[in-house]
């Protein structure tokens, strides 16, 4: 049982270690089930590569795939993410976006200060 759980955790963390896969999960967490093509759209990578990422996420139990006719829809597997992981993702996104703005703000003020000193 413990062995099984550890193997599962290894798969979860291996799946989450890649920024594209984290971005795919973040996107799925905010939307209804998406077709593979729609899901791949914002990512600048080949469909084949997206499919490989989806295999890794599905093996880790983080997403579910369902076939309707010829279209495969992908959705996040409910409750598959530990709350702490969701928290990490949320804060990572928050600060990642914010730090660029901090740099822009401080650097503009630095330039102004240097002009004043001249």
């Amino acid at each position, binding site marked *: 049982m413990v062995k099984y759980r550890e193997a599962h955790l290894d798969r979860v*963390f291996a799946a989450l270690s890649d920024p594209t896969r984290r971005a795919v999960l973040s996107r799925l967490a905010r939307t209804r089930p998406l077709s593979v093509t729609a899901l791949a759209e914002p990512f600048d990578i080949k469909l084949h590569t997206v499919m490989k990422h989806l295999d890794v996420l599905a093996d880790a139990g983080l997403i579910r795939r369902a076939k309707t006719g010829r279209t495969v829809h992908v959705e996040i597997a409910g409750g598959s993410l530990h709350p702490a992981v969701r928290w990490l993702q949320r804060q990572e996104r928050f600060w990642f976006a914010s730090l660029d703005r901090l740099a822009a703000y401080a650097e503009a003020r630095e330039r102004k200060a240097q002009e004043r000193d001249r």
Partner: protein
Amino acid sequence: MTSVSFVRRIAARPAIVFEALVTAEGIRSWWGPDDGPAISAEVDARVGGCFRVRFRTADGLEHECVGEFLEIERPERVVMSWRWIQNGRIDEHDKVSRVEMRLRAIETGTELTLVHSRLSNEESARAHESGWDGALQKLTRRFSTTLGVSSN
């Protein structure tokens, strides 16, 4: 302990970066979950003073975070508590966390280290039991990001 950390180099002197961390104008200009900066910020940057910052995300929803300044060492260190507020109420799923920002003067300006950590609580005790804790530490190391020097 579960945490996210970032190291960022900024082409501005520490005193200028520090102001952006502890003034309402500064915080409003950079805190935010997506493209938009904060819509309002109340900031009382004294030890024991509070902050309350509101955001609107691209989906039109408003979010707030509140906290208290725990330590202030001008111009090199700020520690604050942090909590999300949803619809005016404290988010029950979100325990109090801790944000520490450290500034270091470097040749090109300032190196900022930001660490946002969840405090130990019942949830992390449970996580520890089920083996999540060690795994999360691994994950945290993978998440730790060193961003490049900004162009200037």
